[in-house]
Structure formats: C-alpha cells, structure tokens
C-alpha cells in the first residue's frame, strides 16, 4: 500500500478546488449535510405535528406520505427529484440543490417519527395541566410540550446528522463533487491506488461520524442524569 497518492491530493480531498474554484470534498459533504439537516428539522417538525393532528384527513395524508418516503431507497428519492424538479420548475437546477432537496425530503420523513415519538413521550399530565391553566391547544403544544420534547430529541437529531453525513455520499450519483465523488475522480485519474483512496475516505467519514455518535451518547447520558435529579 502506498498512501503517497492521498498526500498528493490532500487539499483536493478536503476542500476540492476551493480557493480558486467551487467548494468540494469534505467541505461540501459537511455543507450538504448541515443545510439538509437544518431544512429537514423544519420539515420533520411540520410532518411530525401533522401526523398527530386531530384532523383525521390531515393525519392520514401526512402518515401515508411519511410511509411512502420511508419505503423508498434514498437513491430512488434522488432520481425522482433529479427527474421531477426540472419538470416542475421548467428549468434545470444545480445538482447540489437537487441532492439537498432529496436529502431533506427523505430525512424529514425519518425526523417526523422522532418528533412524533418525542411528543408522545411527554407525560399526559403536562398537557392536562397546561390545558387546565387555560392555555389553548396550540399554546400547550408551543410552550409546554414542544420545549420539553425537543430537548429529549437532541440525541436522536445528532444521530440523524450522522446518517445524513453518510447519505451525502449518494450525491456522487448525480455528479456533486463531495468526498466520495472526489475519491472516484482521484481513483479514475491515478488508476493504481483504489484500496488506499477508499480506505482513506472511509477513515475520514468514520472520524467525523464517530465523533458525532459519541456526542449523541454523551448527550443521552447527560439528559438521563438531568432527568434523574
């Protein structure tokens, strides 16, 4: 094994052509993950709240939507977006926007389950107490249930971020220059060192994801501790 190829392309792996060109590599991977996660937090919150709505029709529609998205492979969602978005908006979109849309849609569905479970996990007494002090249903949700539920969900959100980072590797398929795409480019150019290159990016992904996995475990322990006192 000869890791020289990795050192030669180190800055390409981390930021792509950045100062002189567009951001790529690890930088783009993190950018995609952060933007898509922020958007799917909003999407997941909305979908999650809709799926426990008191209106049956709303509940049914949002739950079926969630189930359908969860039944699809992410790759399928990406192809759909790649295919549908230009048809809907009448013009081509940058590939990175397509991927962010697909990741957001996909993760929102998973996020909504976390939100739903988080809200269900708040004891009924809280809602009853809030309602009996005269808060409306909306106020109860906004000021009493959600703040507690969201805090309990933080570890799951961090876990979702880890999945998101792993999922951004699929942006490769539509030619977005994130880490996996950069690796295949370098591999196609050098031909000789696939083992070294893919081992290297696997380790990079691992370091990033493992750090966040540990963070989520730490948060979980902390949360359990704060709850116990």
């Amino acid at each position, binding site marked *: 094994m000869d890791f020289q190829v990795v050192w030669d392309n180190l800055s390409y792996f981390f930021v792509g052509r950045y100062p002189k060109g567009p951001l790529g590599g690890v930088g783009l991977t993190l950018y995609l993950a952060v933007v898509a996660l922020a958007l799917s937090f909003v999407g997941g919150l909305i979908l999650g709240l809709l799926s426990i709505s008191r209106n049956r029709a709303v509940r049914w529609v949002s739950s079926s939507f969630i189930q359908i998205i969860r039944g699809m492979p992410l790759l399928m969602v990406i192809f759909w977006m790649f295919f549908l978005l230009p048809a809907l908006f009448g013009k081509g979109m940058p590939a990175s926007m397509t991927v962010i849309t697909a990741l957001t849609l996909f993760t929102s569905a998973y996020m909504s389950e976390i939100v739903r479970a988080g809200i269900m996990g708040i004891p009924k007494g809280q809602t009853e107490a809030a309602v009996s002090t005269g808060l409306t249903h909306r106020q109860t949700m906004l000021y009493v249930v959600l703040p507690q539920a969201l805090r309990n969900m933080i570890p799951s959100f961090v876990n979702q971020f880890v999945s998101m980072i*792993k999922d951004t590797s699929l942006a490769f398929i539509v030619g977005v220059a994130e880490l996996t795409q950069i690796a295949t480019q370098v591999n196609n150019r050098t031909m000789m060192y696939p083992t070294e290159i893919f081992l290297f990016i696997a380790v990079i*992904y691992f370091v990033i994801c493992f750090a966040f996995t540990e963070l989520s475990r730490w948060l979980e322990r902390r949360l359990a501790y704060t709850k116990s006192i």
Partner: protein
Amino acid sequence: MNYQFDWAVVTSGKYFEWLVSGVVVTVKISVVSIALSFLLGLVIAVMRMSRFRPVYWFAHGYLEFFRNTPLLVQIFFWYFGSYKVLPDAVNQWLNAQGFEFAAAVIALTIYTSAFIAEDIRSGVRSIPKEQMEAARSAGFSYVRSMFYIILPQAVRLTIPPLINQFLNLTKNSSLAMTIGVAELMYQARQVESYTFKGFEAFSAATVVYVGLSFAITGLMTLYDRKVLQPIKVR
C-alpha cells in the same frame, strides 16, 4: 407540461422483462446478504458480549467502524480496492462468481451485520438478569442458560428490529447499481434512458419498493399485536 404517459412501456414487452429481471436480481442479492449478515451479526453480537477483552475490543471496533462509514464507500472499497487486501485465491473465486455481485454482497453483509449485532445485543440485554441468575442456580451452564433460557426470549423481541434491518438491506441493495449490478434500480434507469419514459419506469420501481415495505410493516404490526403484546415482559 405536455408529457405523454405511456404505461404500456413498463407493463408489457421488453422493458417489462427488464424490470422483472431487476426485481429478481434485487431479491437474489437481498436474500443472500440477509442470510450472511444474520449469521455474521450473530457472531459479532456474541463476541461483543464476551468477557475476553481482545475479542470484545475487536467486535466493538468492528461495530463502530462499519456503522459509521457510508455503505457506498464500503461498496467501492470492496469493488475497486479489495484485490489488494484479499488473498489471490479468494479474488479468483470471487471473480468467477461475478465480481460486481460478490462485492455488493460483501459490502451489504458487513454493513448490515454491524446493525444486526447491535439489535441482537439489545434484545439479549432487555431480558431481566434474574432470568440468567435463576437458570444458573438451577444448574444450567452459562452457554446452556444462554441457549435455552435467554436467547429464546430475546429472539422474539429481536424479530421486529431484525426484519427492519432486512428491509433496510433490501432498500440499500439499490446502491449496487453504482458498480453495475443489474438490479431493480439499475433496470429502471436503463428503461428510462432507452425510452425517455422516466416517470413510468421510476413509478414501477417505486411501487415495488414501497409495496414490499408496506407489506413488511403490516406483518410487523400484526406480529406486535398477536405475539409481543400478550407476552410483554414486566
């Protein structure tokens, strides 16, 4: 939009046969990987519960590494890079099997086994430890109490998360298209590029994936209601 729908493209003829052959390959790859990943997951789970430190650390490292690396990167690693790490004899044998298929199976098996091992372990841990104590004091050895007392109870609890992992594996097998395995997603893409009927082709593939996951989800709900609720521990 003036798109002409033509569902006949995907419901009959050559392109229908392509999609069907895609489904067959998806099923094949999934079934083989499910069987292997279950066995490997079981082994890793047992190693993870071992009190012998080196074994424990190996299993722990295995779990963390393969869970925290994208499946696509693992597929590429096995497909492009495994020839440098595997013995020559193994490489030749794999080449004879069709290397795309083998690489996809290896990657899916290893990736999923890490998740399965964690599910099995948490299933075993959810059995109250008094069960083990009672079994031991009734004269069972550690291995026997594991096999006759703990595992039979744990398996029932572990089935839903395991089935979930198998479902994930089936969905993840779509990534095998990136190395040229002609499974369902690959064929849908193929039909799209030959006919420009992307909407129909992707719809057909979506129906298969979503249909499968709906069926499994339905069965799991039934299982939960009929089997798990009546025996609820605690």
